[in-house]
């Protein structure tokens, strides 16, 4: 087994991307994702890659667009306010069917907000990273190990479906260190060819075009329909989640990322008190793990959705539960992190209610 090392989440994302064959990184400084860019600026030259500090988030994402069109594995990282600026480029990537990996190490908002951890960009990530009809695959790791794993995998998924992929972390996960075993490196030369890329045609093929403009409505509609067929494929094959003590759970706590760590402690404490609580943790936020969550309806008599925002993923939980059980919400905002004690208190409250 490979060596276990202690790494920050931000650094694990960067190292794992390098190991996935990513050789191009474009970014702009923002707390709390800074270590990621710093790591890339140090390591990229050593592997013959490019680290470029762009003049803006807008430029950075459009560089991602360009490098992706040119056939490279490419990544950018930012935090909430910066990701808003990247929305333009992400939409264009989706419209031109270009793969790429975007990291959002979220902080409190709206506006300049705070630099403390938050999960308030759930809606942005899963509903509207930019204008137009499109979705991007969104991973929400909850440990440094999982950050390394999804970062490695994200490039394959992006290439396979020709879509942008986002990894949605937060300041807590980005800044914390945990033991991690890194994936074995891939040689970029061994990656599958991209015959659609704009690489210079060498007079050996018709010219390739990377483009999202279609002035004929019928053409654009057809492309949207085709893209949504691909999304259906993604929904069918890429849903990921973790279940913890859900088999007999009366109360299923639903949480992702950092708040799922807190929820897990609360579930353990509830079990110690004889309450049958479990944790359902989406790893993909889009596609939302609909099938996995639906399966918990067998035993669940109530749901508690815990987030570091004012209630965003809870919409998706309610769409799955369809009123068959009450869905309650506990949220902290602005950079506050819920404590296991307050989550436990809510579980106990719900337990009393459903026991009646």
């Amino acid at each position, binding site marked *: 087994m490979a060596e276990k090392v202690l790494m920050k989440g931000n650094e694990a994302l960067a190292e794992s991307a390098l190991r996935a064959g990513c050789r*191009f990184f*474009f970014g702009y400084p923002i707390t709390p994702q800074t270590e990621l860019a710093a790591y890339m600026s140090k390591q990229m030259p050593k592997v013959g890659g*490019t680290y*470029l500090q*762009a*003049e*803006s988030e*807008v*430029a*950075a994402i*459009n*560089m*991602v*667009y*360009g*490098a992706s*069109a*040119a*056939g*490279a594995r*490419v990544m950018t990282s930012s935090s909430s306010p910066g990701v808003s600026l990247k929305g*333009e*480029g992400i939409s*264009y990537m989706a419209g*031109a069917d270009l793969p790429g990996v975007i990291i959002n190490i979220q902080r409190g908002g709206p506006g300049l907000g705070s630099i403390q951890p938050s999960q308030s960009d759930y809606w942005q990530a899963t509903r509207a990273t930019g204008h137009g009809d499109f979705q991007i695959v969104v991973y929400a790791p909850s440990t440094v190990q999982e950050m390394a794993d999804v970062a490695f995998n994200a490039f394959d998924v992006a290439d396979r479906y020709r879509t942008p992929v986002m990894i949605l972390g937060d300041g807590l996960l980005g800044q914390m260190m945990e033991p991690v075993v890194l994936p074995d490196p891939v040689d970029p030369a061994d990656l599958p060819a991209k015959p659609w890329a*704009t*690489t*210079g*045609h*060498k*007079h*050996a093929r018709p*010219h*390739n*075009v*990377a*483009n*999202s*403009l279609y002035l004929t409505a019928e053409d654009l509609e057809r492309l949207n329909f085709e893209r949504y067929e691909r999304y259906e494929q993604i929904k069918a094959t890429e849903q990921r989640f973790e279940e913890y003590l859900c088999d007999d759970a009366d109360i299923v706590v639903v949480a992702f990322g950092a708040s799922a760590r807190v929820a897990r402690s609360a579930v353990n404490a509830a079990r110690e008190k004889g309450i049958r609580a479990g944790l359902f943790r989406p790893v993909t936020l889009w596609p939302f793990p609909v099938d996995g969550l639906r399966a918990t309806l067998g035993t669940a008599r109530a749901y508690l959705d815990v987030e570091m925002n004012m209630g965003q993923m809870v919409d998706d939980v309610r769409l799955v539960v369809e009123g068959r059980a009450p869905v309650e919400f506990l949220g902290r905002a602005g950079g506050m992190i819920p404590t296991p004690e307050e989550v436990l208190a809510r579980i106990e409250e719900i337990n009393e209610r459903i026991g009646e």
Partner: protein
Amino acid sequence: MANDAEAKVVFERPHALLPVVTNYCPGCTHGIVERLVAECLDELDVEGDAIGVAPVGCSVMAYDFFGCDMIEAAHGRAPAVATAVKRVHPDAVVFAYQGDGDLASIGMAETIHTATRGENITVIFINNAIYGMTGGQMAPTSLPNQVTQTSPYGRDVATAGYPVRVAELLSSLDGVAYLERVCVDSPKNVRKAKKAIKKAFETQVAGRGYSLVEVVSTCPTNWGLTPQEAFAWMRENMLPYYPLGVYKDVVADGYADAAEAARARAAACPLVNPDASEEGGAR
């Protein structure tokens, strides 16, 4: 049977320009300039290595006109896109083709930073002092007192400020190797414009740094003039404001490339020019 002299081809479509109908208005100079770009790609035999980036504006469809690989960029972002393409394929010939709103307004940050980084790309800049595609609004290069759809009483510099002289502005940046302003209102000027465009591409192929050719152009449709009247208006009003000429040429200044010129310009700065005999260099 025809004799040899009759069979000789004297004029044909450049290979790097696809046989398609463009969307340009009658009298528009985009067609001339795109043809010049294609001729240069042919003459330098780089079409197969070329990757072009089209803007948002009247030339938005340029990705369908050029025969080389093409990328359609978001409004103003062509330099950022081109930067990344060149980093991925350093041996490719990468160019951005942009209008004034794209390059000098919404994409000004990308323009300036791409130039100052000395990205080894070529930019063809069409300056016709108006937003053409959206129907004739005031551009960053619209002249003072110029009437447009959004400056119906003439551009009032007290409220709308002054136009940007792009060639002059960029000439102060160290990453720039070659900058020239041309126009295409006469056969003579078309030939000069082609020479400039070719030189810009040669600058890139030689790895000398950023190159840009600004083409002072017309927009007969939105100016409300015939093509000939438009050229006359351009000569009378635009050329005094945007004088033609070479604004930077590091080779003519005696340097190998933009990097060498930049070092010489900062000769007095020890951080930029560490003593060659000293180990270690800049920290």
